[in-house]
């Protein structure tokens, strides 16, 4: 009861200047998070330096809810590497392993076939209609490291958006009622 009473009291006593300075500090936090994200994108050379594993196609190595750290370099793509790629027309990137590589002598371009460790067949069914091979421009990065379980936060927030709203609401309340 004391906590709720304090909260109601502090909402009543908000002054304009205090509100503005709190809004500015909130903006600073958001923009510094954005700066860190963009810097990570530059350092790793990949459009999304961290991805969450969404399916069980790479079990038991990567389970749903793990996060992967990606890095993209100009080094050639070789069999065995775990790559993240986008298929034309699908927005969700796929994380699978390269099982076949054919690299052209003259142009250096490469045909790549991938397969999930836990799948029986290769990924030709996932590629676009008529597409037999992946090319370099489809590949967003190679997985170089991983952390287990941390991605569940993202999965829960995507699949049950109500939790996202509750979290943001609680954070907003915390910001408004803090005395700093």
């Amino acid at each position, binding site marked *: 009861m004391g*906590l709720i009473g304090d909260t109601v009291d502090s909402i009543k006593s908000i002054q304009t200047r205090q509100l503005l300075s709190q809004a500015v500090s909130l903006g600073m936090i958001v923009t510094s998070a954005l700066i860190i994200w963009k810097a990570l994108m530059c350092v790793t050379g990949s459009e999304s330096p961290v991805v969450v594993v969404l399916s069980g196609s790479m079990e*038991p*190595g*990567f389970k749903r809810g793990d996060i992967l750290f990606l890095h993209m370099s100009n080094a*050639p793509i*070789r*069999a*065995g*590497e*775990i790559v993240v790629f986008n298929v034309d027309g699908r927005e969700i990137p796929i994380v699978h*392993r390269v*099982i*076949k*590589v*054919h*690299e*052209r*002598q003259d142009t*250096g371009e490469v*045909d790549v076939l991938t*397969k999930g*460790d836990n799948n029986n067949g*290769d990924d030709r069914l996932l590629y676009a209609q008529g597409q037999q091979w992946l090319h370099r421009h489809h590949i967003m990065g190679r*997985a*170089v*490291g*991983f*952390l*287990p379980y941390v991605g569940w936060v993202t999965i829960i927030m995507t699949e049950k958006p109500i939790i996202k709203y509750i979290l943001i609401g609680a954070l907003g309340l*915390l910001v408004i009622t803090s005395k700093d």
Partner: protein
Amino acid sequence: MHSFGYRLNGLLTFSVTILAVMCAMASLSDNLNTPSPSAEIQVTNINRFQKQPRGNDEVSLTMNISADLQTLFTWNTKQLFVFVAAEYKTPKNSLNQVSLWDAIIPSKEHAKFWIQTSNKYRFIDQGNNLRGKEFNLTLHWHAMPKTGKMFADKIVLTGYSFPEEYR
């Protein structure tokens, strides 16, 4: 300053920081390991060697694969993904890698093994260049950790070649 909210916030921040430090240290401890793996592959039989109607060569072969990969396991290793790939060069392609067989080794006890198997995945060339061609068989492994950086390496075995004629 001493309310429940502040204390919870401090506790959570501290525990997340400690967890992150532990994960980083676990990953760094993998660098202390010096592995010494060994492997041998014999091609016991070429079962089929034909040209498909589309013009591409296809091979089916049986191999004996034996390997000792026990030294690659550390306390931070969750599993080892092992695969055998054939590597060869053709006039059009500077490098071709075709994975023939793979397996997941979940623990150190399973890391010393011998297996006789035909190729799990179809070995199809881009073109019909395989007659009489020399190729390497490489045993690759990919160590997937419980947390942190993944390691991959390979052993290259040379001296294999396809027959001169289709059969």
